[in-house]
C-alpha cells in the first residue's frame, strides 16, 4: 500500500471533516445573518462587505455558504442512508431468494436506472412539490437501484461461500444468515459506495436546487445560490465562484474517501 493511497483517504477525511465542522458550526454561529436582508448592502464584492461579499438581497455570502453546508449535508446523508438501507435490503432479499424475486428487483432497478436522475427528480418535484422531502426522495430513489445491484452481486458471492452454507447447515434461517454473515461481509463495499454516492448526492442536490426543485428559501442552498448567481453573472460574477467551489470540494472529499476505502479494503476482499 503506497503512501498516496493513504493520502487520498487522509485528504478526503480532512475535507469532509471540515465540511461537517462548518455545517455543525453554522447551527450555532455564522459571521452574519443568513436570513436578514440588507438591501442597501446588496451585491457587495468579497472583502468589501464580509469575507465573501453579499448576495442580491444583501445577505452575507459566507454565512449562506455555511448554512448551505448543513442543508446539503443533511439532505445528502438522509438520502443516501435511505437509499442504501432500502437498496441493500432489496438487494440482499433478491440475493437470498433468487428466482422471481431477484428478477423483479433487477428489472425494477433497470426501470429506475433507465430514467436519467435529473428527469425523474423533476417529475417527482412536480408531483410532490419542492422541498427537502422531494430532494431526499428524488436522490434516494436513484440510490436504491445502485445499492440493490451492488448488494445482489456482493451478497450472492458471500452467500455462495461455505460459511453461509455452514450457518444454514447449523440451522440458521435466511434472515439470520443475511444479517449475521452476509451484511457484515459486504459492509466494506457498501461503505465505499456510500462515500461515492454521498458525493453524487451532493452533485444531484445542487443540480436540483439549481433548477429550482431543491430547498425553498430562506433555507440556504449551494445550488440555488448558483442559480441566483447566474442572473447576476454580468454584475457580480464572484457570486458564482464560492458556492460552486464548495460543491466541488465537498464532492471531492467524499470521492477521495471512497477511493481511499477501495484501496484499503480491496486486497483483502479479492
Amino acid at each position: 500500500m503506497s503512501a498516496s493511497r493513504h493520502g487520498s483517504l487522509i485528504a478526503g477525511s480532512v475535507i469532509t471533516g471540515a465540511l461537517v465542522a462548518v455545517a455543525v458550526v453554522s447551527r450555532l454561529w455564522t459571521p452574519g445573518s443568513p436570513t436578514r436582508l440588507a438591501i442597501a448592502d446588496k451585491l457587495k464584492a468579497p472583502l468589501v462587505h464580509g469575507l465573501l461579499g453579499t448576495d442580491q438581497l444583501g445577505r452575507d455570502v459566507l454565512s449562506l455558504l455555511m448554512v448551505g453546508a448543513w442543508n446539503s449535508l443533511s439532505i445528502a446523508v438522509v438520502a443516501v442512508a435511505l437509499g442504501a438501507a432500502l437498496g441493500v435490503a432489496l438487494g440482499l432479499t433478491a440475493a437470498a431468494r433468487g428466482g422471481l424475486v431477484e428478477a423483479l428487483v433487477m428489472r425494477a432497478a433497470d426501470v429506475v436506472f433507465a430514467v436519467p436522475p435529473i428527469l425523474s427528480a423533476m417529475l417527482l418535484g412536480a408531483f410532490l412539490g419542492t422541498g427537502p422531502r422531494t430532494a431526499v426522495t428524488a436522490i434516494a430513489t436513484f440510490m436504491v437501484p445502485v445499492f440493490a445491484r451492488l448488494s445482489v452481486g456482493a451478497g450472492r458471492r458471500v452467500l455462495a461461500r461455505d460459511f453461509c452454507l455452514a450457518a444454514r447447515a447449523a440451522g440458521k434461517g435466511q434472515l439470520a444468515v443475511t444479517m449475521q454473515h452476509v451484511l457484515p461481509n459486504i459492509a466494506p463495499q457498501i461503505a465505499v459506495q456510500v462515500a461515492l454516492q454521498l458525493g453524487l448526492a451532493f452533485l444531484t442536490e445542487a443540480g436540483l436546487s439549481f433548477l429550482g426543485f431543491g430547498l425553498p428559501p430562506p433555507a440556504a442552498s449551494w445550488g440555488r445560490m448558483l442559480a441566483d448567481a447566474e442572473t447576476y453573472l454580468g454584475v457580480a460574477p464572484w457570486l458564482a465562484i464560492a458556492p460552486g467551489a464548495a460543491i466541488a470540494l465537498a464532492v471531492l472529499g467524499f470521492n477521495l474517501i471512497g477511493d481511499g476505502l477501495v484501496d484499503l479494503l480491496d486486497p483483502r476482499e479479492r
Partner: protein
Amino acid sequence: MSNRLVIGVLAGLALMAGQASAAKTTLVVGMNIEPAGLDPTVAAPVAVGQVTWQNVFEGLVALDRSGAIVPGLAESWTISPDGLVYTFKLRSGVAFHDGSPFDASVARFTLDRARGPQSLNPQKRFFSTIAAVEAPDATTLVVRLSQPTGNLLYWLAWPAAVMVSPTTADGDATHPVGTGPFRFVSWQKGDRVELARNGDYWNHATPIALETATFRFIADAQAEAAALKSGDVDAFPEFGAPELMASFKDDPRLVTVIGNTELKVVAGMNNAVKPFSDARVRRALMLAVDRQMVIDGAWSGYGTAIGSHYTPNDPGYVDLTGVYPHDVAKAKALLAEAGYPDGFAFTMKAPQMAYAMRSAEVLQAMFADIGVTMTIEPTEFPAKWVQDVFKGRTYAMTIVAHAEPMDIDIYARDPYYFNYADPAFAALMREVEATTDPTARATLYAAAQRKLAEDVPALYLFAMPKLGVWDRRLTGLWQNEPIPSNVLTDVRWSD
C-alpha cells in the same frame, strides 16, 4: 432662409443618406417566453399576443400606445342609448393573408366561435353578455347584448378578440392567418418565429417600414444580454432581468427605456381562512411591508409602488400607497389587537418566477420583523399554482403578477382565489359595468381602488416596469404597455 428651404435641404440630405446606405428593413425582437401556439383566441399566455397582436391578427378595435381604444377593422361604431346594441361599420377591401376576404360574416363567425359551446377562448366571459350577432350587409356588424357591458369595446381590442377566417381558424395555432401588416413565415419551436411584410395590407396610410420581423425566444438573462450586446437581437422590449439593466448603460449602441405595464404584483391572501379572514391581520401585514424595499430587493429598484389593484396608467388611478404605509410598530399593535400578539405562522405558495420568489423572500424577512413566520413553498406555475391556488383555493398566501389590464373586477368575481366576496365591492363593479360614460366610470373605479386599499384582500406591492432595451437607431417601439404586445407597425430604423 425660409423654413421651407430648410426642410427641403434636410429632405434632400435624408434622401442622399438613404441612397448611400439603405436603412435596415429587418428586425429581430427578443422575448423571454416562447408563446404556446400562435392563436390568441384559443390560448391564454401573453406571449401569444406579444407576437401576433396587431402584427398578424387585428380586432374590430385596437388600443394605441396610450391605451386608448382606436378603430381597427371597424372604422366606426355606434352604441344604442340603452347600451345594448353595438353597430360596427367595417372596413371594406380587407383580406386575410391567404386572400380570403374579411367582411361582416367573418366577424360574426369570429364572435360566435368565441362565445359558442365549443369555444376554447381563454376570455370567453368577455362575450358572455352577447345575445346575438348579426351581419345585415358586408360592412355592417350588429352586436346585441343581454345587459349593458361597459367594457365590451375595450375587451374587443384584446388579443383574445382578434378576427380569424373561417377557412383557416383551426390551423391558426401553428400557422396563423390574419389581416395584419405582417404574415406568418415560419416557427422554429424553442427558437424563433419569423414574420414578413404583408404586401397587400389594407392600411395604406401608415407604410410598414420593416420587410421581415423575427421574434427570438431567449429565456436566459445572460444570453439575452449577450444577444443584445452582440447585435444578434435588435430589441428586447421586455427585458427579463432588471439586475442587468445597469450593464447596458455603458453601451453606446443601445438605449434603455423604462416604461410601465399593466402587471400588478400582489400577494393574494385567502380571505376565507383564519387568520386572513380578519381584516386587521391583513392590514397588519400590509403595514409590515416596505414596498420600496420589495421593489429594490426583487426588481433592482425598477417598478412603481401600488396601493391597490390598479396601475398608474389605468384611467382614474389614485395613489393609495399611503393608506397603510410601512410601520412596524403599528403593524404589531394591530396584530395584537386581532389576537396574535406573538404573531403566527403560515405558508406561501410562491410560483417559481424570479419576481415572485424574490418578492417572497423579501416579504418573509419583513414579516419576521413583526413576529410572523412565513414558509415559502415554491409552486410550479402555471400547472400546480392554478390547481392549488387558483382553482382549489387551498392556500394561505400567494404572490403573482396579474397581467390582465383593468382586472380590478376580479375581486367581485365569485368564486375567485382571494375568497374576498364583499357585497359592497361587487355592487361597485356592477355599477361600473352598467356605466358607459368615461368620467363616471373613473369615479367609480377610484372608489373601488380605495375600498381595496382599505380592506387589503391582497398585499399590493408594485406595478412591474417595462424594461425596454433596444438599438438606438430604432424608433416606433412602445415605451409603455397598456396591454402585453409588441406592435411593429410604426417601427423603423432611423438611418
